[in-house]
């Protein structure tokens, strides 16, 4: 089968995926850098290429509320947002997962205010990491497209029925042209399949109540049940990825492991920065430095044991975070540390904060962290565990 490669932006890729999937309802509110995706999708609606009912609401809070109502109604629902938009949805994110709404949302990762910044940063999705949403992260347009298609299958799986957010880097991927391969419409539609409603609100013959008050007697058990469902996502995500490989030839794990097997040092990073890291890892390898990379794809739920298996043999690991938890270690670092703590042998861990608010992440930054790990392992000297890199005064 001859592959047809296309040059598109990340937003084009995701708009195209939504066109192919043709969801029943899409409620959205414009925010940079997501706007361009929803504009493209609005064109598809205006031209009759999809049957989707658009709800062009007056805020992201209403976008998520509308999605919840539509989802509970009994059909397929999608939306997209970025940065402050996701922050405004925060309350409703928990309602969407608590009500088992299989909503799929693209998140073009963007910084949070203040100061105002529209560029790439992972603070938005990290702020939503405990909301009960499944999170898939994507390095480039191809991965975002593939993840978005797989997201519907994971979200709507009868044992899961949970919302999924598909993250890709704002501007760096959403607005940059990259080369990727689209699947054909019928292949996507067959893969995603018909939406099968579960206890839909619109079934007036079988009235159901959604959103009860549950207090001290049962709330705790509700949340335990939610936690158990999240734990069952790993198998479903893996099975969906396997089926996706059979239609696309592209293989996805819960995370990507790059040249880690024989490595001494490792970098852990999410999304687009992984590309830069892989290039520099190849270069370091040519110079005899044994370094590899782990790029989480499924961040919620987080595959702790598998991540520990992939990293515990290393001498040092640097976790690169594109968001911070002020006064604490950054979110990705915390997960890696939690993965490795139960292991008898484990690497020294570093946490480096990079690229906030769209600050460029350059090859020399990767080189610097590789050197830092090398030096530290040789000297056995403790380095500052958490540090900002690529600060302007150090350039």
């Amino acid at each position, binding site marked *: 089968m001859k592959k047809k490669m296309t040059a598109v932006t990340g937003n084009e890729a995701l708009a195209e995926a939504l066109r192919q999937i043709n969801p029943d309802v899409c409620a959205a509110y414009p925010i940079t850098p997501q706007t361009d995706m929803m504009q493209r999708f609005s064109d598809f609606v205006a031209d009759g290429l999809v049957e989707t009912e658009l709800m062009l609401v007056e805020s992201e809070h209403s976008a998520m509320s509308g999605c919840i*109502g539509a989802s509970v*109604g009994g059909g397929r629902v999608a939306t997209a947002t970025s940065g402050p938009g996701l922050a405004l949805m925060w309350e409703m994110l928990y309602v969407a997962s608590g009500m088992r709404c299989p909503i799929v949302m693209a998140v073009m990762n963007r910084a949070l205010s203040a100061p105002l910044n529209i560029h790439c940063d992972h603070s938005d999705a990290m702020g939503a990491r405990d909301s009960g949403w499944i999170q898939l992260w994507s390095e480039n347009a191809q991965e975002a497209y593939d993840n978005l298609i797989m997201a519907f299958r994971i979200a709507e799986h009868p044992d899961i029925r949970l919302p999924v957010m598909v993250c890709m880097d704002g501007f760096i991927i959403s607005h940059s042209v990259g080369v990727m391969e689209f699947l054909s419409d019928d292949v996507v539609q067959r893969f995603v399949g018909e939406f099968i409603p579960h206890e839909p609100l*619109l079934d007036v013959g079988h009235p159901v*109540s959604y959103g009860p008050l549950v207090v001290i007697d049962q709330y705790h058990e509700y949340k335990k049940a939610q936690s158990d469902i999240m734990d069952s996502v790993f198998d479903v995500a893996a099975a969906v990825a396997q089926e996706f490989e059979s239609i696309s030839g592209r293989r996805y794990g819960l995370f990507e492991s790059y040249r880690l097997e024989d490595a001494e040092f490792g970098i852990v990073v999410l999304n687009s920065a992984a590309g830069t890291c892989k290039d520099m890892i190849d270069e370091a390898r040519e110079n005899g430095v044994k370094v590899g990379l782990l790029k989480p794809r499924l961040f919620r739920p987080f595959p702790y044991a598998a991540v520990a298996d992939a990293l515990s043999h290393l001498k040092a690991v640097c976790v690169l975070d594109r968001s911070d938890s002020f006064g604490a270690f950054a979110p990705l670092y915390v997960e890696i540390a939690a993965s490795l703590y139960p292991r008898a042998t484990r690497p020294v861990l570093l946490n480096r904060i990079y690229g906030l608010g769209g600050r460029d992440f350059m090859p020399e930054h990767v080189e610097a962290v590789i050197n830092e790990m090398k030096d530290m392992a040789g000297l056995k000297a403790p380095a500052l565990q958490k540090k900002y890199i690529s600060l302007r005064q150090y350039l």
Partner: protein
Amino acid sequence: MNTSLKLKDLIHKEMRLAPGHRMCQGCGAAIVVKMVLLAIDKPVVACSPTGCLEVTTCISDYTSWKIPWIHSAFENAAVTLAGVETMYKALKKRGKISQDMVFVVFAGDGGTHDIGFQSLSGVMERGHDLLYICYDNGAYMNTGTQRSGATPFGASTTTSPAGSVIPGKLQLRKDIVKIMAAHNIPYAAQASPSHHLDLMRKVQKAVSIPGPKFISILSPCHRGWRSHVDDAITISKLAVNTCFWPLYEIENGKTRLTYIPKEKLPLEPFLKMQGRFAHIFQGENTWMIEQSQRHVDDEWNALLSLGAPTDPEK
């Protein structure tokens, strides 16, 4: 084709809000919800924001709703139901659903005038086909009678208490019916449970019109109003006959009074039945009675100048 609103016929209709709910005895909201549902013949899909009605009608394993019902949060009942209604349109378009149904929000004044205002405005502007019922008890009753944008001038609430310096709430209510009508929706109205035929006729008219509809219904709360448990209907009747709560509708921009009291009563008897106004009858605060009366008179005269009734009370 609407069923008759005669009591002898209504008593045979199924109550779609089951007894056993946990609203206070004598609560106006329960009466309002039952009257609205009785007036509608089609299947109803309902939504409530967080509030008294919501927390008392669906707890843990129990629900009083014999119809599909959803609560998602406080500030978004209108758009939550608009989402359901949009899915209904989407599924109808795809031939996956064919049954006719009506979408109704039941929200208090906090969820309507205040925190839910933005999403409500958006839903009205976008023209979703639903009926929004505001049961207005003039404060945040579920959290303990805090002042809202619907609390009447002079009322003492837990956050606008009648103190020695500030004598209760000093601001006027939001005129929510006119605000809704200003969205150019086909139907906005005000009703009271004391005039149940008027209320139910308005509901029947509203659900017969496609697009967004809004009805504000007075909903006495004896806990917050500091009135007797069994006075909900008596106070509602006084609210109407003092013209504190005029019964009117705005259909396609045209205002019409649906009831004019034979004798317009002074405000005092209405205010006197409610402990929340007790302080304004005391010495230095009596100016507040006069000011309240002036507001009521001004609004009533403005309404009179807009529309005389065509079907006065029978």
